[in-house]
């Protein structure tokens, strides 16, 4: 019974949220959601579609043509050239795209290399597909950078893909162009796919340049790139994103996408159109706020430097501090913090073995919540 699901776990982040919900005054800095609402221009686009009566029917399986055309235009601005008719699929959030991709490119028993610490749900999807996650640690002392020799060592004849998140969750690292190009060469040498989850690509807080291997024409038959509207446009509840790759891969992923969801929710596809048509200004507005909140978080962590050290993130809305004193088991630390202060954060081990001894703070929540959470943490650590 339940052979397929027996090794799957509910995400640790959701377990923490569940525990936190028992306290009426809890402050959650755990789950990856911001405290902003979806921008008004997106809601108005949806309202217009609802009033026209165009949201009740399925769309084509790869998504509304007008949305895919907008996606192609938006990709071209980032130096990525993909045919909206054959190389772009609108997905039900990025997790559905990830699932469809992994089910498409792997056979049971295959291995997928994951640089870690990284997003918790990757390994569950890999397990669901009957494959094995092979973790390769990122180097914290080098700002959570890739170390190519580690990948070379991890590659076996069962390796199918390298799956990374750029900018990375939970470390907020933007991988450099050189690091990524080296990874691309490695994938070519060993005939591997590269799955790039770029969900945080719009969160850039300094002059770091965002580069994607999907820009490299020689790699277009290897790179599958995913994006979600959830984070950048505060649309986590709408469940809409997209993936793109060469036609030869996308036509196969489309079959699985069709099996899983038929099409992404049409009403959310109209919301995504609103985001691409009119949401640019809102991203700028959110980023200004996130920088303020990042500064608050870093200032407060600096005051606790005998307890924590951290690498300042270039992107995302997460900081991933290392526990320097007291209880270093991340689960025990997080449990105790929640119990004593009612502040929820995520244990680092949730993001892979190399995340042990750390915890993740989501600074996308309100300034008031951040300040109150740190006040409570200060008292707890005294």
């Amino acid at each position, binding site marked *: 019974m339940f052979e397929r699901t027996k090794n799957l776990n509910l995400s640790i982040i959701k377990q923490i949220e569940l525990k936190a919900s028992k306290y009426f005054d809890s402050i959650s800095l755990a789950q990856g959601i911001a405290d902003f609402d979806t921008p*008004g*221009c997106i809601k*108005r686009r949806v309202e217009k579609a609802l009033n*026209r009566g*165009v949201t009740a029917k399925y769309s*084509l399986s790869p998504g509304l*043509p*007008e949305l895919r*055309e*907008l996606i*192609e*235009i938006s990709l*071209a601005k980032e130096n990525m*050239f*993909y*045919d*909206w*008719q*054959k*190389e772009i699929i609108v997905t039900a959030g990025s997790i559905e795209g990830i699932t469809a991709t992994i089910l498409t490119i792997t056979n049971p028993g295959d291995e997928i290399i994951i640089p870690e610490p990284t997003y918790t749900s990757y390994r569950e999807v890999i397990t669901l597909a009957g494959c094995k996650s092979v973790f390769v640690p990122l180097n914290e002392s080098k700002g959570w950078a890739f170390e190519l020799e580690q990948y070379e060592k991890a590659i076996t004849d069962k390796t199918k893909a390298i799956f990374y998140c750029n900018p990375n969750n939970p470390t907020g690292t933007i991988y450099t162009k050189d690091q990524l190009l080296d990874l691309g060469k490695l994938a070519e040498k060993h005939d591997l796919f590269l799955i790039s989850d770029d969900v945080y690509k719009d969160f850039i807080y300094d002059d770091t340049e965002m580069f994607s291997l999907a820009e490299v*024409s*020689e790699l*277009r038959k290897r790179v599958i790139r995913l994006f979600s509207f959830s984070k950048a446009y505060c649309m986590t509840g709408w469940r809409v994103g997209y993936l793109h790759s060469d*036609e030869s891969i996308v036509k196969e992923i489309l079959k699985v996408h069709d099996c899983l969801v038929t099409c992404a929710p049409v009403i959310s596809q109209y919301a995504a159109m609103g985001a691409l*048509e*009119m949401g640019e*200004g809102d991203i700028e507005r959110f980023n200004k706020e996130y920088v303020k909140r990042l500064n608050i978080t870093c200032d407060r962590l600096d005051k606790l430097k005998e307890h924590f050290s951290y690498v300042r993130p270039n992107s995302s809305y997460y900081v991933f501090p290392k526990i320097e004193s007291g209880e270093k088991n991340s689960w025990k630390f997080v449990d105790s913090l929640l119990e004593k202060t009612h502040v929820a954060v995520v244990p680092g081990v949730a993001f892979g073995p190399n995340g042990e001894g750390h915890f993740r703070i989501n600074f996308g929540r309100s300034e008031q919540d951040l300040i109150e959470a740190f006040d409570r943490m200060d008292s707890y650590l005294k």
Partner: protein
Amino acid sequence: MKKIFTYTLKYILKYTSKLVLLIHRPRIIVVAGSVNKTFVKERVRDVLKKRGYSVRANSKNFNTEIGLPLAILNLPSAYSSYVGWLKIIFKAIGRIFQFKFPKYLVLELGVSDRGDMKYLLSIVKPSVVIITDITKRYMEGFRDLNCLLDEYKYLVNKISSDGLVILNNDNNKILEVLKNFKAKKITYGIEKQSDWQAIEINKNKDGQSVKILNNNIINNYDINRFGEHHVYAFLVELAIQKNINKI
């Protein structure tokens, strides 16, 4: 209140745009159709630029009753900000007094309801019309395809005999409905014999290599984009380039 504001805004933007166009008299090329307007617009804008003409195209997809005047006046949208729109109105009026204006405007026209084309053509008088494709998939506020086609019929019939209508030849419905107009017709396509026809397309890692037939001469080109829609856009670019002196 919102309705009154929108109506006033539309009115001011429309008549300011008309006045600006009357003063500067640019040549207007419009791109209409259900799909591929943006890519065609960019190709046309770029070929005119390459030839050294001053040209401007709609930024983003500003192609509706509010968006089109903004494109003409080269102003951004204020989206949901009333204060922002008040600033736009002042800037729009200021545009009447500007000295510099491009010789060419390349404008997308978007229709989503009956009568939209009539409204848009009450603002602009194009000398060149490019129709990309018309499909049933983008009906939005139209009851049926014939109602949608009526909008395009209205558009091509508004072009005078010294104008140019560039049509996608692969769409039967376009040819069937859009036939009796005064302007000179140029066709382009992939599947059917056309004035500008892509007779062979090969995909490569950098885009597509295409063989194009025009006037019994075949030429080879490389397009650094993927997808047939870019081939269509490129055919339009060639047609415009060849007829640039007549525009």
